[in-house]
Structures are given as C-alpha cells and as structure tokens.
C-alpha cells in the first residue's frame, strides 16, 4: 500500500470517526508490517506519540505566554462533551494544579500514559505488555480473557483485548477515576469505559483511536485520535519519588491565571 493510499485511508476514517461506528472505518496493515506466527500484525517495538502541545491540553487551544503552547489537540471534533457540573470541575482542576495527581507521582492513567512518554510494546498471543518509561511502570492487556475483573479498581484499570481484523481492540474498565487526561484539568470518573483501537498501518506507524464513555461526566461518548511513531531507542528508568522537589514550590493556595482560552 502506498503512503498516499494510507493517507487517504486515515483521512477517510478521520472524517467518519464522529458519525460512524469504527467497523465502517477498518484500517489495515500494509505489507511492511511484520506478522506473528498466528498471522496477526506484530506491534512489538518502542513507540512514542508525538502529540506536541496536546500534552498540556488535549482540546484545541491557543498559546498563552508562559502557560501553554498552541495545539490542535487530539480530541476528535475538538470538544469534550462535558455535563455542566463536569465542565465546572475542569476549571476547578485547572485552578488547583497542586491537586494534580501527576505532581504527586501518581499513575497518569489510561489513555494519558500513552502520550506522556515512550513505551516498549511486547506482544505475545496471550498477553500484550506496555512497558512505559514514564513512571517506570507497565500495563498488561489480557488477550485470553473476555470478562473484566469483578469489584476491582485501579489507576489504569483492567485491560482485555481482541483482534478485529488488523486492529488490536482493548476494552478498559475498573478505572478508579482519579487520573487526569492532561495538565488542563480534563478528566473522567470511576464510571468510565474506554475502548482503544491500535492499528499498525505501516512499519513506522500505529494509528490510535479511543472511545471514552462516562455517564457520570459526559453527555455522550467521545473520541480521541493520534498516532505513534516507531523509535530506534531504548527505555530508561524514570521513576518519580526520589527527586520530587516541585510541589514544595507551588505557591500555597495559588491558582493558575484565569485566562485559559479555547478555540
């Protein structure tokens, strides 16, 4: 498949993302993608998602000197459909950066962990493991289990996966709802369910799409989309606690400036 036809494929899917189920938007792996003995695309390797300024705010935003660079964001359609109370909560989160679990060395959560640093993906038929550099932590996707854990809760939940053609589909539940999606206060609750779709469209690229549903927080499910690029590098140790000295410098009770313009 030529690079042009992949672009057409991705563009067509991007256009369809808001209106059609993903089954109508089936991405495929081209011939450059290695396959496992079972014939599945092999996603193994080191990957990084170059999302730029969206790491600060996943919604589209303009630049503010000293606060944030501009970015088109990674939210499909541009706006997260918050319920009114939740939209207010985003503003409260933004105004209290010291409450951000990230600053306290907590787990970034799903899908936040995917775009906050590189990961080494190790694929076997029964489990697929993400070895995240950030926080020196991991996520395991169980391919041989169909039901989520009962009465369980975790920062990054429970991930079970299956193949839909060339796409790895991961269903994430059992989230504790404490993690945030970025530094701008975007969030979900413990009622969130996330369905992720990973398609290695060519040797160097994994296209990623997540549908996030949370009846406590959003008015409807919404989608996030970005891509990973293959890295020729290695994973380094990046735990958090040893040298954490930032929180002590956060001005007590101080908030970020009020202006947080969105496009």
């Amino acid at each position: 498949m030529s690079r042009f036809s992949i672009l057409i494929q991705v563009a067509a899917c991007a256009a369809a993302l808001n209106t059609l189920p993903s089954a109508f938007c089936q991405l495929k792996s081209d011939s450059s993608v290695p396959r496992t003995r079972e014939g599945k695309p092999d996603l193994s390797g080191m990957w990084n998602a170059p999302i730029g300024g969206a790491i600060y705010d996943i919604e589209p935003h303009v630049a503010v000197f000293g606060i944030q660079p501009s970015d088109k964001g990674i939210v499909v359609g541009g706006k997260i459909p918050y319920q009114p109370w939740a939209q207010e909560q985003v503003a409260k989160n933004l105004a209290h950066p010291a409450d951000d679990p990230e600053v306290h060395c907590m787990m970034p959560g799903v899908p936040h962990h995917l775009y906050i640093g590189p990961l080494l993906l190790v694929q076997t038929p029964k489990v697929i493991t993400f070895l995240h550099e950030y926080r020196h932590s991991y996520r395991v996707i169980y391919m041989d289990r169909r039901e989520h854990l009962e009465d369980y809760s975790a920062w990054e939940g429970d991930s079970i996966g299956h193949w839909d053609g060339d796409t790895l589909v991961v269903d994430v539940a059992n989230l504790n709802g404490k993690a945030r999606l970025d530094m701008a206060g975007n969030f979900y609750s413990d009622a969130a369910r996330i369905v992720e779709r990973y398609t290695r469209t060519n040797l160097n690229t994994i296209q990623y799409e997540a549908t996030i549903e949370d009846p406590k927080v959003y008015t409807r499910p919404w989608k996030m989309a970005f891509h990973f690029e293959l890295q020729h590098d290695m994973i380094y140790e990046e735990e958090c606690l040893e040298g954490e000295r930032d929180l002590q410098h956060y001005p007590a009770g101080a908030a970020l400036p009020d202006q947080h313009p969105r496009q």
Partner: protein
Amino acid sequence: MLSVAAAGCLLAVFPALAHHSFAAEYDANRPVTLNGVVKKFDWVNPHSWIIIDVQEANGIATWECETGAPSILRRRGWKPSTLKPGDEVTVSGYGAKDGSHTMNARVVKTADGRQILAGSAGPGAPPGEGAPPDKPEAK
C-alpha cells in the same frame, strides 16, 4: 553514546516536562541567568537538579536549577559526569513563582564553551531560549 545532534532529532517529540506544568511553578516573566560554581549535580528522577553556588550582593547563595529527567538528558547527550563539583557554569532559565532560589533551567554553558540544553523546557514554557543551539556539542 548518542551524539547530541542525533539525540535532538529523536527527542524533539518526547515530552520534556510531563511531571508538572511549567506555569504552576515557574514565572515566564522572571528570566534568570546565573554564573556560579557547581556544588552538586543530582542525576535523579523525575527531574535532575544542578545545585550551584552563586556570588550575590549579600554573600553566596545556593540555587537549585531544575532540568529534565535523566532519560531526557541522556538523549540530549548528558551523562552523570557531565557536570562536576567545582565546575563553573552559566545557567539560563526562569525563576520560581515562590521567589525561592529555584529555577527552571533551559541552557547550561560551561567554562570550556560547551552549551547544553537542560531539557526542562516543557509544555507552557516560553519558546526561544530553549531552542537547540546551532552546533550542540556533548562532552
């Protein structure tokens, strides 16, 4: 070891300051440039710190200069031995909002002319000074 130029290509897309936002702690309107002597180079996560003694009007002040994580620094050509106690350095960056002797380091220049990105320019940090120098050089 990766050359700094090669690392720059690799790392241009890696988040440098994911642990916390720049604006929550540092003031973009408080640019700081310090000439000092390295007391300690603390190669630790989630951010490394360069501790330097600076001669100020009232005597010697100890400043803590925050850099990127060791992973970020390594990809930009740094090693734990890059800075040693006693080294003279010039560190440019932005001061903390709380007025303490703490800064977000952007560029470190050594007495022998090396200029190294400190890797701490993260989301929200002002552009400009943290941009890669024309001819980066690793020790």
